[in-house]
Structures are given as structure tokens and as C-alpha cells.
């Protein structure tokens, strides 16, 4: 029985924490929050130089060829510091989709550039508010061009390449397409969101050249697999964020005195912090199991990923909101860092679909397993 990360993986975590402590401090994160800069280009370059963007990309495609456990370790650290870079879109979504369904030529073209941090990727699925389904996707593909409007697209304003979900030749099923965003006919408008440390856009495609990614009509199936993999990695970001929020709340409660003693000595605060801790630990354990399933490509991955997704989404939002509550009035000032996690918790909780939808998916998968 060894349900833990290896010493090498822990050393990687320490190295990542040290690097991000220097290069992704809250002062640096706030530079993105307070300005129109869409992401921290220096940090992105640094992260690529560390090889993180290519962690799970095979060496044949220019990656480091480590594995998913290593990528989970890095994800947790990125989540802890609320890193303002397009890592999840590029690495968890686009690289994974290419690895799962890309042609040899597509993989050779894009994966080495992703591994090297030379390109940013994005996934264009949603077309407005509400849960995206094959019915709500109006974007159409015909004769290797696509037309339609996608929003919100995470990192859509800064990405070089997009994976776009569209209906090919009027079919009911979704297909995926790979689009070079420097092509003619692409119009992008930045959209303000609840978390300005991550950039979002509306992307209009007007007869833009596109090549199919995977077989026609397999888009929904493929997206489900990509989202399962991304859900595990984002769960680690959420666990890292929840841990940071709990640490902040603890630190503040120990130093804040009221009624003649530290507020951390009041049971109302102690039990609140324990509730945050318990949610976090359950989420961490569920994330570990999902990491195992991802790294071994186990048949349990779909159930494990949905479990980790729900658990981590709820734990992070809970920790982030109760961190503000523990801080009292200072907690809802712009000056304190509590809101960085509050924003990111909600963003990560919606980016791959809401916990409500993942709960339903989880039960669907458990039913399939049981029958």
C-alpha cells in the first residue's frame, strides 16, 4: 500500500513552491488583477523554462515525458498561488485533446510548441449562459471552415490555437475542430469576468479555416474524455487553493485579538476552520485517487474524476468564502488577498461545468457501473 506521491514527486513540489513563491507572489498576481494585462507573460515564460508545460507530453513531441502524477503536483502549486497564466486551457485541455484525438501531423505541429510555451491554447465550447449541450451549440462547420460565436472562452483573447466544438454539415452531433486563431475571419473581444486574473473572451468565427480533430460526430464523446482528465488536474489546483485559503484563515485568526484573546481560541472559529479542513482533506483524498486513475489510465477514471471534481469544487469555494468570513471586515477589502481565492474558486468551479452538472454525471456513471 502506497497511496502517496513519491519522494521525487515531493521534491518537484518543493521546487515548484519555491519557484512560484518568488515568481507568482500575490504582488505579481495583483499586477494582472489591477491592470489590463491578460496574463503574466514573465511567469508563463518561466513556467515553460521549468518544463512544466510539457510535463505529461511525451518526449517524442517535445515534452518532458514525466507523467500525470507530476502534473498533478504542479497543478496543486499553481492553484495555491492563484497563478495568472493560461496553463489549464493550454495544458489540461488543448494538449490533452491533441494527445487523445490529434492526427500525427497535428500532434507534431502543436505539441512541441505547447511544451515549449510558445503557444497558448483555448477550448471554445460555450455559446452563452446555461449548460452547453449539442443542442445549444449553433456554430457550424462546412467545407473546412467554421462560423459561429463562442463565449465565454477562457484565454480566448490571448490564445494562438483553439479547439472549437461545432456541428459539421448540419449534423446533430458535435465535432471538434482545430483552428489557428491568427487566421482570417477571427474576431475576439475581451469579456470581463468574476476573476480578472484569468482572461476570457468572446470569439467570433466567420468562415474561418478549420481542420477536424478526431472523427466527425465524436466531439461530445471526446470532450467528455478531455474534461475528465482536466477535472482531475483542476481538482489539484482547487485543493492547492483551498489549502492556501485555510492557511490564510488560520494565520489571521491566530493573530487577530478580540474580547481579550485570539479569535482562533473561540469554538465558533475553531469549528469553522475544522469544517474547512475536513472538506479539504476529503477533496485531497478524492483527488489522489483520481490522480492514480489518470496516471494509470484506469477504467475507474470517469467516476473518480467526477468525484474529485465535485469534492474539490465544493471544498475550495467553502474554504474561500469562510476565509473571508474569518477575516471579518478586512476580508472583503480589495487590499486583502482573500478575494483572489474567492474569485478563483468560483471560476475553477464553473470552467469545466458546474458541480451541479458533475453530480448528475457522477450518478449516471455509477448507474452504468451498477447495471
Amino acid at each position, binding site marked *: 500500500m502506497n497511496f502517496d506521491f513519491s519522494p521525487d514527486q515531493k521534491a518537484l513540489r518543493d521546487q515548484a513552491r519555491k519557484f512560484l513563491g518568488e515568481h507568482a507572489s500575490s504582488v505579481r498576481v495583483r499586477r494582472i488583477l489591477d491592470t489590463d494585462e491578460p496574463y503574466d507573460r514573465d511567469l508563463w515564460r518561466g513556467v515553460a523554462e521549468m518544463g512544466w508545460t510539457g510535463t505529461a507530453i511525451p518526449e517524442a513531441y517535445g515534452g518532458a515525458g514525466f507523467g500525470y502524477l507530476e502534473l498533478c503536483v504542479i497543478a496543486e502549486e499553481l492553484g495555491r498561488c492563484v497563478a495568472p497564466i493560461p496553463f489549464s486551457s493550454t495544458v489540461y485541455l488543448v494538449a490533452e485533446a491533441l494527445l487523445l484525438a490529434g492526427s500525427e501531423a497535428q500532434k507534431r505541429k502543436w505539441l512541441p510548441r505547447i511544451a515549449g510555451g510558445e503557444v497558448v491554447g483555448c477550448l471554445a465550447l460555450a455559446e452563452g449562459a446555461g449548460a452547453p449541450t449539442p443542442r445549444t451549440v449553433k456554430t457550424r462547420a462546412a467545407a473546412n471552415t467554421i462560423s459561429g460565436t463562442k463565449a465565454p472562452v477562457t484565454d480566448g483573447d490571448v490564445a494562438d490555437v483553439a479547439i472549437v466544438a461545432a456541428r459539421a454539415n448540419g449534423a446533430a452531433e458535435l465535432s471538434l475542430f482545430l483552428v489557428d486563431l491568427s487566421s482570417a475571419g477571427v474576431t475576439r473581444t475581451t469579456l470581463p469576468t468574476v476573476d480578472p486574473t484569468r482572461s476570457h473572451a468572446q470569439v467570433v468565427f466567420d468562415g474561418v479555416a478549420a481542420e477536424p480533430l478526431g472523427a466527425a460526430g465524436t466531439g461530445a464523446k471526446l470532450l467528455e474524455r478531455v474534461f475528465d482528465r482536466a477535472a482531475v488536474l483542476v481538482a489539484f489546483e482547487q485543493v492547492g487553493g483551498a489549502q492556501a485559503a485555510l492557511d490564510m484563515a488560520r494565520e489571521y485568526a491566530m493573530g487577530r485579538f478580540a474580547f481579550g484573546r485570539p479569535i482562533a481560541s473561540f469554538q465558533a472559529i475553531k469549528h469553522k476552520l475544522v469544517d474547512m*479542513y475536513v472538506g479539504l482533506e476529503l477533496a485531497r483524498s478524492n483527488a489522489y485517487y483520481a490522480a492514480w486513475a489518470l496516471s494509470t489510465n484506469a477504467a475507474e477514471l470517469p467516476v473518480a474524476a467526477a468525484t474529485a471534481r465535485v469534492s474539490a469544487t465544493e471544498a475550495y469555494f467553502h474554504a474561500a468564502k469562510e476565509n473571508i468570513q474569518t477575516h471579518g471586515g478586512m476580508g472583503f477589502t480589495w487590499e486583502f488577498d482573500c478575494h483572489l481565492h474567492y474569485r478563483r474558486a468560483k471560476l475553477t468551479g464553473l470552467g469545466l461545468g458546474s458541480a451541479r452538472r458533475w453530480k448528475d454525471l457522477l450518478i449516471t456513471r455509477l448507474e452504468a457501473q451498477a447495471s
Partner: protein
Amino acid sequence: MDFSDTPDEAGFRNEARAFLERHAEPKRGAFETWQSRYPDREGLERAKDFQRKRAEAGLAGLHWPKAYGGREAPAIFQVILAQEEARYLVPRGYFEIGLGMCMPTLFAYATEEQRRRYAPAALRGDEVWCQLFSEPGAGSDLAGLRTRAVRDGDAWVINGQKIWTSGAHWADHAILVTRSDPKAPKHKGLTFFFLSMKSPGIETRRIKQISGQSHFNEVYLTDVRIPDSQRLGAVGQGWGVAITTLMNERLTSGELRGPDFEELFALARAIELEDGPAIANAAVRERLADYYVRTQGVRWSRFRTMTAISRGDTPGPENSMGKLVNAPKAQDIASFAMDLLDMGGVVTDKDWAPMRAAFQESLLSSPGSRIAAGTDEILKNIIAERVLGLPQDIRVDREAPFDQLPASRR
């Protein structure tokens, strides 16, 4: 990360399996217990018989010193044995307190002669032990206990009342914590003993719980005499001894038995609501997912603890989390399952109610799980103070003489 046994662990697992195949019967249903198949005295006698076989096979006292019949095995072996025993009907609730709590206390504080006298008999199930700790006025605040010990020559005279004593009605011996000096501050006036439950002056009464079952007793002690040679630890140092006992409790407390996510999921797939099968109802699905996520979270947390144990680490107070999550969840699941049964949910007839009324039974037994072996609130304090390192509550009872402290209304 991998879930496989080391060669040593695999070898032990095979040994445990071989023993169980030979000496134990499979459970007839998920919730069958030793006591439900063999009630009362028969259960105890059969349990003693099984325990003797367990001891002879080297499967008892796994982490005990070899000098007292133990195996000095790595702590992970205990976990493996519990995993293998899960499918079998094995006695639970007879020997855990003696082997897991009383004997480790004797190992730490008794004389060598006493350890050699009591440990092997406890290990073989020949003698059963109980723990006389809680009192009507001292539960979560155990150090507030009032049972008096007064020195009389070479002996002590004990008067008072204990409560929530599992197994007192069949136990041969007990450990006991008493107040020997009411003038001293509360934690400093306690003295710890062990004694025979056959001593004159001991009266045991069963407590009937809201479930109708009786797992616990009240024990009245009237002028009970204990030789001073059966004192464990110094006079006035009983609190430190009690802490030794309680530290071992954390390792002993087992998983909760009763309907959990699996059973609720099965029920939801079987039962019809006003708009079709319960499993198709969005509100039901959301609740199921919530319970599943928590159930799995505890499950994989236990694997993380086992990994630590398997490396030779001692499980810390973070291990309290399992009961803190599972006990309230069991209560919620019982209540929600009965909601799904709707008007029929009230019936407790095992032949009438789905799942042989397991949910109804759990509704009435689960409040006890949230209280026994550390209430939800005390567990939160433990995690807050020992895991998160938060300060203790401000105490008003630390330095004052015990007899000056206010007592509960009765």
C-alpha cells in the same frame, strides 16, 4: 502510487484468509453482527472460543510485545486483518477495550508480574475487560469525574457511579479512574486503578437506548475495596494514565456499521416516487452524489492513513476525521432513505420494511455514533488544537480546587 501489498503484507493477508476460511463463517447479510446471530451469553461464550483460536493462530495482539503473547507486527497488519475479517461474522465488541485500551495501560504502568498474570488471559479471551471512565457528570469533560477513592491502610475504598461502560455486565476486570483529592485542581487529584468486577460492592445495570438495544451499563460502586498494589501510576497522577488509555482508543475505534451510500443507492434504484424511479429524480441524484463524494473521501483518506501506518508512522489526530464525517452522514442517510419510502418509511417490521428495516434502525442508533468515543464537537476541538494548532479554549477550571468548581444541576 500503488495499491498493492508488499510481499510481507501479502504473506500476512494469506495467513489471515486461511485462518478465516477455516474458523469463521461468512456474514449472511451486510449488517449481520455476531450479537444478532448469537445473542447474550451464547454470544460471549462463542466469542471467547473464537478469540482463543485467534490467539493460538497468532492473530491476536498483533502489535503487542512478544513477551505477553503478542507478535510485534507492523501496525498495517491490524488494518489488513480488519479488511479480511469484514466479510466474515467475527466477534466485535467483546475484546477490543481489553486488548486495545486496558492492556496497553497495564503495559505502561503495571508491574511485570501483573502484566504476565493478566495479558495472556485477556489475549486468549479467557478474561474480558471493561473501562470505568465516564460518569453522569463527566463525559466530554472526563477530568470532572467525582467517583471518590479514599485511602484505608493498604487499600482504597471506592464510592461513586460510572456510566456508558460497554461490557461491564460480563467483564471480569476493569480499569478505573477516580478522584482521590477533591481539594486539588481537577486534573491533579485523580488516581487510576484496576480491579476485579467480582469485587463486593459493584452493581451493574443495563441502559436501554432509544434503539431499544442495550450496549452500555451503569456501574455503581459502593465501598468497593481495591488493594493499593492495583494502583496504576502515582497517587494524583491518574489523568496522565487515562490519557495513555485514550490515546489507544483512537487506534481501536472501528468503522461504523450500518447502511451507507451503497444501500441508499440501491434503494433509490428500487423505489418509485411520484414522478418515477427515485434514481431519476434530480433532487435525489444530487443528494446521492453528496453522500458518495463524502463516503469516498473518507475511504481514500483511510488509505492515506494506512500508507502512513505502513511506513511505521503512528496515525495522528487527523484520523478522528473519519468518524466526524461518517457518523452524521449515517444519520442523514437514514433520514433521507426514510423520506424516499415516504408514508411507508415509518414501519420498523423487518419483514415489511425494505432492507430489513436497516434505515429505521440506523435512524435510532446513529445519534449514539455522533456521541460515543468523542462527540462531533470534541472531535472538532481535537482537530482544531492538535492538527491545526489553534489555541485551547480559555479554561476557568484549571487551577481552582476541584471541590470549588460549579457542578451540573441534577
